[in-house]
């Protein structure tokens, strides 16, 4: 029944694209995040739906979309370089060609789609449609996981997702980071949505979804999730109107939630403060150290999964309690082929300095462009522009939460994040087009034009 329903939904989704070909772009995004072909067991996996949606999205854009005002930006150029460089390292430098080719299989798709996406997001409605699709698709996973957590089914590596193969978004730490990162976008949709205009139902659903997102780090017991929540909490201070009320509400929420947390959650979170007592954390430090040595010898990187070359020995303190005494015994641990556990080291070890620099530039330009838009548009009050600054802020916060989470997990090529980067580029382009068109009527109605708006920054084309 579920299989049939999912299959019918996908077919219906693709059929609606016949009326509006842009919907095929959304169909690909939906399939890419949820992977319905892995949830269904017979009908849905029968067709290569991801490939069909990708081809339809591209064909729909190529054949029916207006290309007026389409521009290729520096950030898309950085992604093209990263794509070409990943191909180069996979083909010529890979230390483990088989596993490198396996990872290349999905990385190139994520990058190609992110490069293509901004070309299709030409209107405000399309950008919002993408956000609604991402939020609702993620919402399916988040609501199910949140409900299981609330009903007591959580626990580290014991929570069941729709798909349990640790792939893409279905990995607990990745899901925790993306769920927390998407909270600012949910808030934006609750306030500025036009597909679902703000009313009590939208607000109610939005708040419930945010609560479900906050439950993910609890349910998965992902330490990165707790860090992400803390980062987002601090970031929100920048935009909330009533800071003291916000602080008081956040404090009360924490105090109310604490008694309900399971003891296993406290135990796992305690290892954040004492990383030396935990093998996962000790290994990270050793792997990062190894990566720095590795990139010194291989400045151009060792291709995807180059971490498989690592092997190291280190001493880990093992605490044991007997009665009132706690004895610490140092045991020799030998580890090999340990994953990077950090996107920065992942990029450095796999793609060397060229790939790492391109990736960092891609991230930094995203943060700076969103900041520029936020400042330029924050005083605009006409409905056509009032949504820009809050969306730029939301996308910036999402990216910051990701960048902090990325420090502790290898999610450097996470497809969902590349969708957000594509949306950032589209928003930047939308504003540039609007400014270059000189829509003075709207600006005049808003009073004197800010200086920055009259001279758009030419740093990034």
């Amino acid at each position, binding site marked *: 029944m*579920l299989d049939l*329903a*999912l299959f019918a*939904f996908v077919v*219906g*989704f693709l059929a*609606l694209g016949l*009326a*509006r070909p*842009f*919907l095929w772009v*959304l169909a690909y995004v*939906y399939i890419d995040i949820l992977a319905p072909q892995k949830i269904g067991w017979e009908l849905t996996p029968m067709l290569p739906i991801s490939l069909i949606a990708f081809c339809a999205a591209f064909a729909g854009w190529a054949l029916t*979309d*207006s290309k007026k005002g389409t521009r290729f930006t520096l950030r898309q150029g950085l992604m093209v370089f990263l794509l070409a460089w990943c191909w180069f390292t996979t083909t010529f430098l890979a230390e483990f060609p088989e596993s490198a080719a396996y990872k290349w299989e999905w990385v190139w798709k994520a990058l190609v789609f992110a490069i293509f996406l901004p070309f299709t997001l*030409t*209107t*405000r*409605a*399309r950008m919002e*449609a993408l956000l*609604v*699709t991402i939020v*609702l*698709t993620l*919402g*399916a*996973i988040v*609501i*199910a996981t949140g*409900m*299981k957590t609330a*009903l007591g089914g959580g626990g580290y590596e014991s929570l069941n997702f*729709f798909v349990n193969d640790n792939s893409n978004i279905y990995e607990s730490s990745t899901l925790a980071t993306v769920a927390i990162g998407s909270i600012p976008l949910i808030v934006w949709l609750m306030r500025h949505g036009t*597909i*679902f*205009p703000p009313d009590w139902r939208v607000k109610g*659903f939005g708040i419930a979804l945010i609560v479900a997102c906050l439950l993910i780090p609890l349910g998965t017991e992902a330490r990165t999730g707790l860090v992400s929540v803390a980062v987002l909490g601090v970031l929100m201070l920048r935009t909330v109107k009533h800071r003291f009320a916000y602080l008081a509400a956040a404090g009360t929420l924490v105090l109310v939630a604490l008694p309900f947390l399971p003891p296993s959650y406290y135990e796992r979170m305690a290892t954040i403060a004492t990383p030396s007592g935990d093998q996962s954390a000790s290994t990270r430090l050793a792997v990062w150290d190894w990566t720095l040595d590795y990139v010194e010898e291989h400045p151009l990187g060792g291709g995807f999964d180059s971490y498989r070359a690592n092997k190291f020995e280190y001493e880990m303190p093992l605490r044991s309690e007997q009665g009132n005494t706690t004895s610490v015994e140092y045991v020799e641990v030998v580890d090999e082929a340990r994953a990077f556990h950090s996107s920065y080291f992942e990029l450095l070890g796999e793609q060397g300095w060229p790939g790492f620099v391109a990736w960092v530039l891609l991230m930094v330009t995203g943060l700076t462009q969103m900041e520029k838009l936020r400042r330029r548009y924050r005083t605009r*009050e*006409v*409905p*056509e522009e*009032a949504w820009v600054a809050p969306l730029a802020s939301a996308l910036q916060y999402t990216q910051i939460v990701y960048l902090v989470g990325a420090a502790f997990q290898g999610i450097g090529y996470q497809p969902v994040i590349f969708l957000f980067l594509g949306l950032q580029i589209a928003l930047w382009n939308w504003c540039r087009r609007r400014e270059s068109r000189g829509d003075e009527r709207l600006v005049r*109605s*808003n009073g004197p034009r800010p200086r920055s708006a009259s001279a758009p920054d030419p740093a990034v084309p």
Partner: protein
Amino acid sequence: MIDNIALALTHGLLLVALIRLVRRSDLDREVKAEDAVLTPREKRRARGRPRA
């Protein structure tokens, strides 16, 4: 059970969003606010809200 509830809820909302998108005039090209095709409810809201 929980999985089915979550899937049904979000997919239902996605379907509503897609149908609304198909009917929107500003999906493929930006239209000025005054040219946008508004639903009666949106018109009521717009009338009630003073223009900036």
